């Protein structure tokens, strides 16, 4: 009887410890709104113009647009890598 009691106590105590802990994970963060904007198409020069200054203006705007878009893509990569690192740190 005593042996049965001791065995039961051991089984009952160790039986509970086989329960696994809860899995808590962090939710993936929202992307900053500026990164969600699509890059616009390049501007077109007015087909009727013959002025070099008009063409240069449009080209200048297009260059700026390219650099803004490039910066957005670079920031996307930077944002993703940073968030991935943070996300993996709590796994």
């Amino acid at each position: 009887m005593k042996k049965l009691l001791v065995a039961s106590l051991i089984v009952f105590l160790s039986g509970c410890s086989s329960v696994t802990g809860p899995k808590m994970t962090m939710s993936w963060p929202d992307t900053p709104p500026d990164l969600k904007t699509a890059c616009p198409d390049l501007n077109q020069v007015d087909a009727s113009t013959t002025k070099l200054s008009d063409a240069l203006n449009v080209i200048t705007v297009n260059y700026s647009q390219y650099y803004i878009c490039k910066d957005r893509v670079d920031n996307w990569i930077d944002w993703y890598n940073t968030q991935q690192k943070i996300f993996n740190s709590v796994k």
Partner: protein
Amino acid sequence: MFSWLLEQVLGNLPTWLWPTIAGGSAVVYFLAHIIGNFPNFKPYALFIKPVAFVSILGSVFMFGGAGVTDILQAQIKEQEAKIAVAQQASSDANTNIQTKIVTKTKVIHDTQVVYQEKIKEVEKKIDADCKIDPEAITILNGAAKNPLGATK
């Protein structure tokens, strides 16, 4: 609903209660064993002993459960703290990137304005010296067109 209520009640009971009940039941078990030697009390002892035995097992089981729950609660708290730190870091990273975007966009825009001003300064001179053939504009616009179609 019932399981939630049960969880709340059992979860709020102190851990020390279970070994106390187990100990008390063990005492009752041995007392029942002793009084079982007296013929007058033997029927009571026969009833009390299995009840005490089940009570010992039940409370040991609950003690084990409470121990595991304490460990899990500690793990949850630790994980919650880690998540809170990570969420703060994530939020800070978002703010930093947002600030970087605004600053860099301003620099790019300002540079554009500077060059537009420069064009304005020499506008008359370059327009007088050079007339663009419409064919050149067509080629330039064709090259600027997205070959994959318009952006959605």
